[in-house]
């Protein structure tokens, strides 16, 4: 057959549209990607909010009105300025906490710790989970069985429980919290990377690389990894958000990051006692954490949509 009648790529079992339209709509990659990124509302909002939070964290020493550790019990629990109270003062726009520390300052510094926890825990779990998942997916057989066993064992122990147990017993510090979370939440990475690798492994170019005698290391790093990277990004954002929320749960039970370092989870947990009386103490860090987790999720969803056009809808 010749060019004219040979259909270039009729997708197998694609959408109703794909049988007729997709090849007409072939995008020009560069401009279209730009258009998609900026045309994706979720991605723009998520990225924007995350950027603001990131800047807040980086610039905390510059933009903070005070010192996050500077306590004065005589000025404790000053409400934020929009409250109708004679205690409010522009010295503390968001008020002060139970120990009289400036809430806005702690919020800015807290961004650092919450971001650090999310990012570091995600990184650790990502390395563990991806390694296990890719190995299992690539080698299959015995390796797969062992990895599956490890995953099942891990999944049969509830995360919150194990994290609480470990943290309560070895004592909690920022480092411990990060490691414990990192060592616990790799399961999703492993599961997704495993199946993604299995899929990619069956594709022709991997077989081609194998037949060319490429080393396993090389095949995994340069043939498989690039093709499962978009899954990786999505899971990474999910787990980052997950870690930040888990830290909040640990803090609720008194076992999160240690004061006086403020994390947003800790601030929420410290304020929980005031929820029935001074709800702002929990609402302010709560909204901050909410925005952070939301923006990470939006970013992840957006990146998935943008990098995987078949998932557009």
């Amino acid at each position, binding site marked *: 057959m010749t060019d004219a009648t040979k259909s270039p790529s009729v997708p197998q*079992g*694609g*959408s*109703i549209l794909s049988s007729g339209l997709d090849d007409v709509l072939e995008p020009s990659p560069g401009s279209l990607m730009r258009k998609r990124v900026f045309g994706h509302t979720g991605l723009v909002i998520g990225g924007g909010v995350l950027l603001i939070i990131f800047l807040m964290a980086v610039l905390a020493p510059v933009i903070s009105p005070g010192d996050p550790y500077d306590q004065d019990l005589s000025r404790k629990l000053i409400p934020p300025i929009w409250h109708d109270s004679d205690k409010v003062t522009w010295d503390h726009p968001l008020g002060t906490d139970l120990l009289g520390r400036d809430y806005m300052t702690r919020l800015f510094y807290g961004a650092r710790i919450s971001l650090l926890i999310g990012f570091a825990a995600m990184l650790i779990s990502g390395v563990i989970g991806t390694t296990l998942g890719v190995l299992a997916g690539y080698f299959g057989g015995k390796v797969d069985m062992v990895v599956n*066993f490890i995953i*099942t*064992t891990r*999944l*049969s*122990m*509830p*995360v*919150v*429980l194990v994290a*609480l*147990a*470990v943290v*309560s*017993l*070895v004592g909690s510090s920022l480092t411990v919290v990060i490691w414990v979370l990192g060592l616990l939440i790799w399961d999703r990475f492993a599961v997704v990377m495993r199946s993604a690798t299995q899929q990619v492994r069956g594709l022709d170019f991997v077989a081609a690389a194998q037949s060319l005698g490429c080393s396993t290391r090389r095949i995994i790093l340069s043939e498989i990894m690039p093709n499962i990277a978009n899954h990786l990004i999505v899971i990474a954002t999910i787990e980052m*958000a997950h870690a930040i*929320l888990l830290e*909040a*749960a640990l803090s*609720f*039970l008194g076992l999160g990051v240690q004061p006086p370092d403020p994390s947003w*989870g800790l601030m*929420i*947990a410290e304020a*929980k006692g005031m*929820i*029935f009386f001074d*709800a702002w103490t*929990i609402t302010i860090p*709560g909204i901050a*954490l*909410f*925005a*952070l*987790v*939301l923006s990470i*999720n*939006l970013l992840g969803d957006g990146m998935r949509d943008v990098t995987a056009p078949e*998932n557009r*809808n």
Partner: protein
Amino acid sequence: MIQFALKRLGVAVLVALTVSILSFSMIYLSGDPAIALAGEGASEEDIENVRRVYGFERPIIVQYGDWLLRALQGNLGHSNYLKADVASVVFERLPTTMILGASALIFALVLSIPLGVLAAIRPNSMIDRFALTVAMIGQAMPSFWFALTLILWFGINWRLLPISGTASWQNFVMPSIALGYYVTPAVMRLTRAGMLEVLSSDYIRTARAKGLRPMTVLFKHALRNAIIPVVSLSAVQFGFMLGGSIVIETIFAINGLGFLVWESILRADLPMMQAIVLVLSIIYILLTFLADLLNGFLDPRIRVS
């Protein structure tokens, strides 16, 4: 089929064993259980006495072996703290946990599956955005904050629901919502993604070409295929909710297994902790097994292979 079940059982036993070794050593590595048992402010004499009476002075390996041997004979031992037969306490609390977990799961499914389906039918519509918002809030709000907010409104301000305990079925409403809401985003997203994929599949086009009513297409042809991954996810989530609902159980004063195992860890109540960890891991594996069976029922391709 039987071979499959046996294999699953083997894995279950192995997992349970691993988990029990992990938890046993964790408790030992983290401090002296005699201190915990003797209570806050116990004297030297008390601690020594506890250590002697409970046999904590023996090597860890011996203690573990001792426990394992008795566990294998079906004797899960006696709680050091609650002074009761571990098995009977676990089985007394299991129903509470099950009711909470099941009602939370039902709430999550009842909320998330219809939302996910609607969102998939009309992508980017108002209903899709609404569903997305629901999911996002569920994802981004720490569960204790959400739970306390529920108490504030439904318990204190409106006095619609009892706040704590397990005295009546109304007591389970708020905890189920608080616990289930946390699962909602995952289920909803999975339903939506599954429906989107299935709705654009060729067999749905076939079904429509046959002139079937939209509802038949949606529920008979699409949902059944889209729901398969949701079943697996629900099983896993149900497993988590049984053991991982410490925060919710704490807030609503529900005496479930999650709360009990957490307290047991703090009290170094080894027999109790070991038994619950064991039960939880077995339940988890049973659940995934059930999910596989259900999926086999839903998807004949799985059934055959």
